[in-house]
């Protein structure tokens, strides 16, 4: 008898989904195709970044939750793990709530590709982001997901003791262009590995810190300077926000702590590209994720 995770329409990574107060509903297929999945998330003040809207790492956490769930539903009884995310961020300032809509673009034997659009429902449905995610199809083994279909979950209530994004994800500044994340249990998905949204948030924070440190250090690309201020809190590394992001989830992060090592590649017109290599320090420092983040002045 295998372990049965009864999710009742809630993302298996429920801690992360609840933090962003993500509401979900399934859109059943019309003409024999595949279901689509929609979500809605408020933009709570403690989750806003320097751009004025939901911090991009947080945005991509909700994207990963919705896109990953849809991909998983499309291959049941198998399940999936996200392998890459390509995000184009159109707006950094949001009124909220944000509405997400995911559809399966391709369902293959080994991989599922999903496309997601995010709009600012509180601001005339203006486009916020367009994301393409790829997930690898896995044999779930003894771990089975059961869902009541169609998926429908209410928006969780606000937390009486709201934590900032960096605090929730256990992200702390390291030296220069290095940023750490403590791999706490509430950040793990059902496979026991670090949630893809946590990686996105770490990449967001780390890239902004690296750009700030690079500027403080004379802009030599090494990030050897010190980030402006503590690089934490509402605005991240002050005046900087993560925009477009590409993440390749190369290997699972199981042990932790996790460390983001950044290199500022270059940029112009207030937009700087940062390469972020994420290593699982507790697993012989092996490279687990590779990301690029476009950091913009705001």
């Amino acid at each position, binding site marked *: 008898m295998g372990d049965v995770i009864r999710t009742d329409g809630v993302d298996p990574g429920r801690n992360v989904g609840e933090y962003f107060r993500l509401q979900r509903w399934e859109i059943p297929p019309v003409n024999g195709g595949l279901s689509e999945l929609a979500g809605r998330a408020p933009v709570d003040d403690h989750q806003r970044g320097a*751009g*004025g809207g939901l911090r991009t790492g947080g945005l991509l956490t909700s994207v990963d939750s919705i896109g990953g769930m849809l991909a998983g539903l499309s291959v049941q009884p198998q399940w999936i793990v996200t*392998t*890459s995310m*390509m*995000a*184009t*961020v*159109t*707006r*950094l*300032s949001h009124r909220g709530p944000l509405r997400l809509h995911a559809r399966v*673009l*391709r369902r293959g034997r*080994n*991989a599922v*590709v999903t*496309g997601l659009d995010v709009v600012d429902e509180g601001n*005339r*449905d*203006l*486009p916020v982001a*367009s994301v*393409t995610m*790829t997930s*690898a199809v896995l044999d779930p083994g003894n771990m089975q997901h059961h869902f009541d279909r169609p998926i429908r979950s209410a928006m969780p209530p606000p937390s009486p003791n709201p934590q900032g994004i960096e605090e929730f994800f256990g992200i702390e500044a390291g030296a220069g262009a290095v940023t750490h994340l403590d791999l706490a249990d509430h950040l793990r998905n059902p496979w026991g590995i670090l949630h893809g949204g946590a990686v996105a948030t770490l990449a967001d924070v780390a890239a902004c810190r690296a750009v700030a440190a690079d500027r403080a250090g004379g802009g030599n*690309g090494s990030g050897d300077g010190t980030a402006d201020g503590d690089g934490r809190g509402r605005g991240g590394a002050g*005046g900087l*926000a993560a*925009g*477009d992001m*590409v993440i*390749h989830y*190369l*290997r699972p992060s199981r042990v932790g702590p996790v460390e983001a090592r950044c290199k500022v*590649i*270059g*940029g*112009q*017109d*207030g*937009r*700087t*590209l940062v*390469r972020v290599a994420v290593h699982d320090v507790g697993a012989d420092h092996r*490279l687990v994720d*590779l990301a*690029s983040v*476009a950091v*913009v*002045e*705001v």
Partner: protein
Amino acid sequence: MGAAGYPPERHLLSDLGIEAESIAESDTVARIRATPHIVAADGGVRAGVLATLVDLVGGSEAIRAARPDRMVTADLTLQMVRPAVGPFVEARGRVVRRGRTTLVIEAGVFDVSGEGSQATADAGDAPPAAWATMTFAIHAGNQSKASGDEGPRLPARWSFTGAGLEGPVVDALSLSETGAGGGEVSMPVREYLLNSFGAVQGGVMALLGEVAALRAFEGAGGPGGAVVTDLQVAYLATGRVGPIVSRTRVLGTCGDGPGTGGSRWNAVVELFDEGDGGRLATVINVGAVSPGPPAEGPA
């Protein structure tokens, strides 16, 4: 890829004059001359051409790393940090992760002063003009069609030498407009544009996406002379029959602060193989900058 008669004499890769070299078991470089026919409005090599270059580098490395299995490009991203002005532009790639079913490669794009490995060495650690990543799907047990019975092997150095482009590279795609609003273009499938598997080359799809996005920007009221700086390409199915037709959504501008200047555009381009039942073949997220103040994109 320079093996078993590919590409044919008349082929886009040949006319682009790309040369490539394996400098280690897991490192490949490819170069192209930055001619006026392949540059964008800012004087740098167009993003779609750079995508072709990095796809070639990635494909070469993937063939070696995945040998004897067959591989196809699953996704490709290209992010530019400044114009790649040459006189030669070089892509250098390396394998980041080789899994059972996928292979991830990253590549930098650099300006170099001349041809050959000495130019590469002279360039040293100069900052790149762009950074790219690619994922290749590995199909176990399938050998490359291009390599015949020998398995997919590549020479250490090869070049594609053709007559050269007679005009702007976009003209070589033989595009036609299919919609009044701009951004809807049609491209016939010809041998000139195919990869070694008989489908439209991945870089060509990226270039088509670049062109479709730029036309959509103008159709949405944006100024001419915009330059594509970012491509995020998901290859869902091969384009084999044609014509390949585009459908584009302009997403509007990014950011409100001084750094973004309000002149950054984004669009999503979907490419369909109309002759293959209208199958969705490729989705491309495009980022571009325009030289003047933008018009507000459609909500």
